[in-house]
């Protein structure tokens, strides 16, 4: 299955894509859609129809195991966690008005917002919060939110509006885990067939793989929000269909415009592009415990082979920023280093490692827009250094089969996270997704200390130290931060750039309004 030159075009793509979209680009000039009306000031009322990428027959309304984009968009409309990441990726209160650590950070106390109610009008009680976390971490059926709550020992009621989180070890960043969208607060008697939360929209209808509809939650706690009376989320499996639906006016907004098509879509007068810088990353993963990647010089050589600017240009059509093998772009302690392509040094490192004519197989899969293209560019760049990268293309479900986390040289994708939560997910021996089998003893000691260090200055120091270790010897090759590009009709207002990596202002449609 090794094919060093993978064909970038399928027949369908060539015929359909080229003919259709070239024609679209050409005809866009002569068509001249009706003059665009602008969104104007916030307006109460109206319907927003949103085309969302992905989803299928297994779509769910479960607040604690959203898998696809439509799942996440529904989750963020119906439910809210105790805390919330805002557009600038800083923590803000949501269902809780405050979440504070006790001295030592072995326990945290959340105070529920006064007067906050579920869709059915009942107030949120500490019992509901306790039941929510019992549901997420149910040992018989752990939800996807559970993997981040490993340090959580017990949740207990601690007052009329207080809930106490008791941890197995001190965790000064525990509040960041509570802000993930998969930790939405639900009533103690929650039943997924009657999906009740505190989110800005109340459930109305749902057909899996097709569409879901929501109406305004009149008791919502944020003043003046939501603006809309009704929200409809429509699944789209196919890029062309989603873009066509926007251009023909059947939907008001779509997520994820393919980066190669942003110019075509943006040329329509009636359409506005929404471009967000994100902390999302699409790494190559090198397993540090198998040859040849067990030799740090091989990992360093591959990292020097990658021409990051070229990858951003070719894979992301320039819509993104080069990265330098570190994640956590929006962490206050992010080092923001540079790493330039250096083929000469890469050759020297490979010679020193005794592998001047290295040949490796890279497992690639369309797990996210751009992954396969990135693999192709890397394979081309590697040839200049005498490294032969054979591409083995597999489909997504094969990629995430039981071989996931076992691939020796593959790819992955992650959304925005700060450094310590990300390391706990992907770079520690107890991390659920340690794709690179990274097991550096010094690194682990630093992260363990950082995770429980209470002094912010010392913790910052440790996080910077951990980044330096990963920059020097880690198993990730992180080449870029892709921008997120969405599109909406000019008459839709309130959607602003958002750093979380989620589309359309973090799928927070409470902020949106439509002009008359």
């Amino acid at each position, binding site marked *: 299955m090794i094919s060093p030159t993978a064909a970038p075009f399928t027949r369908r793509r060539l015929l359909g894509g080229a003919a259709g979209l070239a024609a679209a680009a050409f005809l866009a000039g002569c068509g001249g859609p009706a003059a665009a009306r602008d969104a104007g000031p916030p307006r109460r009322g109206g319907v927003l129809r949103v085309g969302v990428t992905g989803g299928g*027959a297994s779509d769910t309304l479960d607040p604690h195991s959203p898998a696809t984009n439509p799942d996440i968009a529904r989750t963020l409309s119906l439910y809210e966690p105790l805390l919330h990441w805002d557009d600038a990726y800083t923590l803000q209160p949501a269902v809780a008005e405050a979440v504070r650590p006790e001295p030592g950070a072995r326990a945290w106390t959340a105070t529920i917002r006064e007067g906050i109610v579920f869709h059915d009008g009942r107030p949120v009680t500490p019992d509901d919060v306790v039941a929510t976390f019992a549901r997420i971490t149910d040992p018989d059926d752990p939800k996807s939110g559970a993997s981040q709550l490993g340090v959580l020992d017990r949740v207990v009621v601690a007052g009329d509006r207080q809930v106490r989180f008791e941890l197995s070890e001190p965790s000064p960043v525990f509040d960041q885990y509570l802000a993930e969208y998969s930790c939405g607060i639900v009533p103690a008697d929650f039943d997924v067939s009657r999906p009740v939360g505190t989110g800005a929209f109340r459930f109305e209808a749902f057909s899996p793989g*097709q569409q879901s509809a929501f109406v305004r939650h009149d008791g919502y706690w944020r003043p003046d929000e939501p603006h809309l009376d009704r929200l409809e989320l429509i699944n*789209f499996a196919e890029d062309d269909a989603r873009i066509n639906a926007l251009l023909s006016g059947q939907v008001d907004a779509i997520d994820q415009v393919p980066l190669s098509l942003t110019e075509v879509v943006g040329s329509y007068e009636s359409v506005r592009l929404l471009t967000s810088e994100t902390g999302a990353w699409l790494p190559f993963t090198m397993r540090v415990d198998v040859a040849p990647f067990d030799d740090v010089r091989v990992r360093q050589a591959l990292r020097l082979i990658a021409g990051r600017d070229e990858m951003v240009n070719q894979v992301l059509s320039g819509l993104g920023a080069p990265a330098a093998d570190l994640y956590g772009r929006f962490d206050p302690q992010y080092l923001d280093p540079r790493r330039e392509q250096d083929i000469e040094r890469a050759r020297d490192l490979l010679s020193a490692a005794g592998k001047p004519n290295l040949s490796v197989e890279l497992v690639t899969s369309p797990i996210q827009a751009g992954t396969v293209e990135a693999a192709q560019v890397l394979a081309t760049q590697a040839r200049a250094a005498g490294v032969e990268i054979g591409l083995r293309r597999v489909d997504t479900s094969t990629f995430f089969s039981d071989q996931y986390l076992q691939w020796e040289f593959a790819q992955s994708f992650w959304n925005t996270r700060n450094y310590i939560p990300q390391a706990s997910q992907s770079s520690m021996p107890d991390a659920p997704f340690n794709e690179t089998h990274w097991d550096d003893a010094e690194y682990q000691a630093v992260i363990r200390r950082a995770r429980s260090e209470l002094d912010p200055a010392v913790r910052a120091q440790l996080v910077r130290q951990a980044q330096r270790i990963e920059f020097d010897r880690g198993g990730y090759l992180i080449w870029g931060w892709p921008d997120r590009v969405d599109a909406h009709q000019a008459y839709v207002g309130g959607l602003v750039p958002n750093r979380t990596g989620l589309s359309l202002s973090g799928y927070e449609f409470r902020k949106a309004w439509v002009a008359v």
Partner: protein
Amino acid sequence: MTSTSPLTRLILKRLLVSVLVLLVVSLLIFGATLLLPGDPARAILGQQATPERVAALTEQLGLDRPAWERYLSWLGGVLTGDLGFSAATQGPVTELLGGRIAASALLLVLTAVISTPVALALGAWAAVRRGTRTDSALSGISLVLAALPEFVIGVLLVVLFATSVFQILPSVTIARPGEPVWARPDQLVLPVITLALVVIPYVIRMTRATLSEALDAGFVEMARLKGMPERTVLLRHAVPHTIGPVAQVIAMQLAWLAGGVVVVEFLFRYPGIGQALIDAVANRDVQVVQAITLIIAAFYVLVNLAADVAGILADPRIRTSGGVAQ
């Protein structure tokens, strides 16, 4: 003619062969789904699958049983109207497919009802005027259309009528939960036209060819010489001669449509079985894939059977002697 006339026996024989063909097809489908890469249980649970949940689901889906045993129980279910269990929806396949089969059938019926008379009329027109400029223009256009894949036709129609040039028709099908697709007829226009434009050229060309042949044949010349009006010559003598071959082509086109809807449904986001098939393959929802493939195969076989029968009934030589056609 007795009660078991050669004609009845011929049709019964065809029916038996069709059943055998379907049985072979069911074996092929089952074999092919075994070859699909990836583990269905993991595909359903996604990236967050834990070993315990994978094991539980594997057992629930019966994936730990031997293949022949699964095939037999699947076949038994199909024969009793139970198409199996969808792993993705956690419900019966019949429930998932019910509305979708109706939606796809609507697309097929509309296409057939619109394209067949149009194509027959145009084909006959071209045959009567064979050799003229109208005839060659029609031939040229149908040749070009026949050469374009349905995906290109669909995209061009969308560009023309929905997005870039005129914005007069919807480009995708969006039905509210619980709303049937025919509730908004304007959304059906582009998918139906796309399918019709793919089917029509073949039928035009076949009608023209067989009818031209008949019109030049000796028996038609004879009828003319007897002094019959040209209209009677055409309708009573030439046209019946073409029913067999043309029915075959129409049946082939209908059978093709059952597969062609997969692409068109994908392009227009039409909630039929084609879209369900693509979704099921991506999700490794094996029993749904098997059910849809078998439905499409059964449709193919049935339509061909119907064409055979129409051909037999229309051809006096076969109708009377029985064993000529094989």
